[in-house]
């Protein structure tokens, strides 16, 4: 019984129930007429799923999001690893990404639309600006912190530079690289929605703004809720791929 109570799944379920319970409670007080209860939101979600109005907008949101995330992941990991391996690249790159990480996105968007218009490109860049810095900085830190003795081990057994990078440094860095990817993915979701709110209303961002403007708050929250669910699922899948590709040792204990 007690082992059931502290089982990770039970704990997760309890935390979800508490969060939704609080939401329901706050909605019923109500703290604001613009704040629907959890159950109202869920029924709106169900309605939007059934009449297709939600599913039809997702491709528009996912297009810049996925393209942006793929670019940030590949480019971000490559930059970060390179910066971790090469001091010159570090001195050149680290300040750029540290500044980008703290840059106020809303202030940059007018510049982006000025340069790239209000189409897909600007939205992809928004996603990249949000997600890439944390991916780069994590990859870079991870590579920098590879245990010295493991690298010495590779050298003493005559590994080539390439072997040491591929067989030792990258797998050793993979947990922190993946932590960066997960944070980056979450930031990318935020970026995609921000782009739709601030550049042109399309996709799920349009659904949010539109329902807000006609005071259908339950639908607005349903739209926000759905994107959060996608973000969580996406991050969960990402974590699985780490275990499969890089860290079979972690899978054993799961």
């Amino acid at each position, binding site marked *: 019984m007690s082992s059931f109570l502290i089982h990770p799944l039970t704990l997760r379920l309890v935390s979800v129930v508490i969060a939704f319970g609080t939401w329901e409670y706050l909605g019923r007080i109500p703290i604001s007429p613009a704040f629907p209860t959890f159950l109202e939101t869920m029924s709106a979600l169900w309605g939007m799923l059934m009449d297709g109005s939600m599913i039809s907008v997702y491709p528009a949101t996912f297009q810049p999001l996925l393209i942006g995330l793929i670019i940030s992941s590949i480019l971000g990991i490559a930059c970060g690893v390179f910066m971790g391996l090469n001091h010159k690249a570090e001195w050149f790159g680290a300040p750029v990404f540290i500044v980008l990480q703290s840059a106020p996105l809303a202030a940059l968007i007018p510049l982006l639309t000025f340069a790239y218009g209000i189409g897909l490109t600007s939205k992809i860049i928004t996603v990249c600006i949000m997600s890439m810095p944390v991916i780069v900085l994590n990859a870079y830190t991870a590579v920098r912190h590879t245990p010295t003795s493991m690298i010495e081990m590779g050298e003493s*057994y005559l590994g*080539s530079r390439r072997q040491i990078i591929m067989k030792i440094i990258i797998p*050793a860095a993979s947990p922190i690289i993946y932590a960066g990817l997960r944070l980056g993915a979450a930031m990318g979701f935020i970026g995609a929605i921000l782009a739709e709110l601030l550049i042109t209303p399309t996709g799920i961002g349009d659904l949010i703004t539109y329902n807000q403007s006609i005071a259908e708050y339950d639908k607005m929250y349903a739209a926000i809720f759905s994107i959060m669910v996608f973000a969580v699922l996406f991050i969960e899948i990402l974590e699985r791929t780490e275990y499969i590709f890089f860290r079979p040792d972690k899978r054993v204990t799961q």
Partner: protein
Amino acid sequence: MSAAAETVSDNAQQIAVEVDNVTKIYPGGVEALNDMTIHFPKGELTSLLGPSGCGKTTLLKIIAGLLKPTAGKVKVNGVDVTGPGKERAFVFQDFALMPWASVIRNAAFGLELQGMNKSEREAIAEKYIDIVGLKGYENLYPHELSGGMRQRVGLARALAVNAEVLLMDEPFSAVDEQTRRKFQEDILEVVDDEQKTFIFVTHSIEEAVYVSQSIALLLPRPSRVSEIIRPDIRRDISPDAIRRDPVYLDIVERIWQGLRTYVE
């Protein structure tokens, strides 16, 4: 110390590793080794014994080619050391196992880096995993092993590449006393069987006296070879008899007297 080399053996013997006037100053300014000269004879086990921080690991890493000396040179089989080499294998004080690799992959990793194909290298690794007593653990990961078992994986990895010179940095430090004794006997056998040169760092005086043909006592501040002792204990009697042998006990006592001023 005189200008003459501190050869740990009579001159008739061939020298496997020569360390000549090696000084090592770390970037922070710590002088870990100061003008150290020491020669290691072929086919023997030489222990480096000395208090913590006297530069044993530093010396071993310089011989391995992992660190560059600030001054002086190292030769292995008469050839200058400029980096790591195939004829040397290193057993790390902190094991340096890859947590994401199974026991067998870790043990075969030296061969993997040489480009040997998988079935061949795993067959060799298997043999050495057996020798170090880890048969049946091939598919576990390092975090599932005890400290002593991890150390044995590091040992198997070093043995698998079949190097002439084995550089062992406290290879038995994480092993319990019983296993340690078994290991010491195993290592004596390996020294007898294979014409390999062992340079062996240890903190245990008893261990050094028991397993070594010669012992180099290192002292800190400044780091130097204070004495070379050849235990010459009888090996024709049982291990337990050796440990009660007055000659053995005398040598242990003599080394302890030499070191104690640095411990107190």
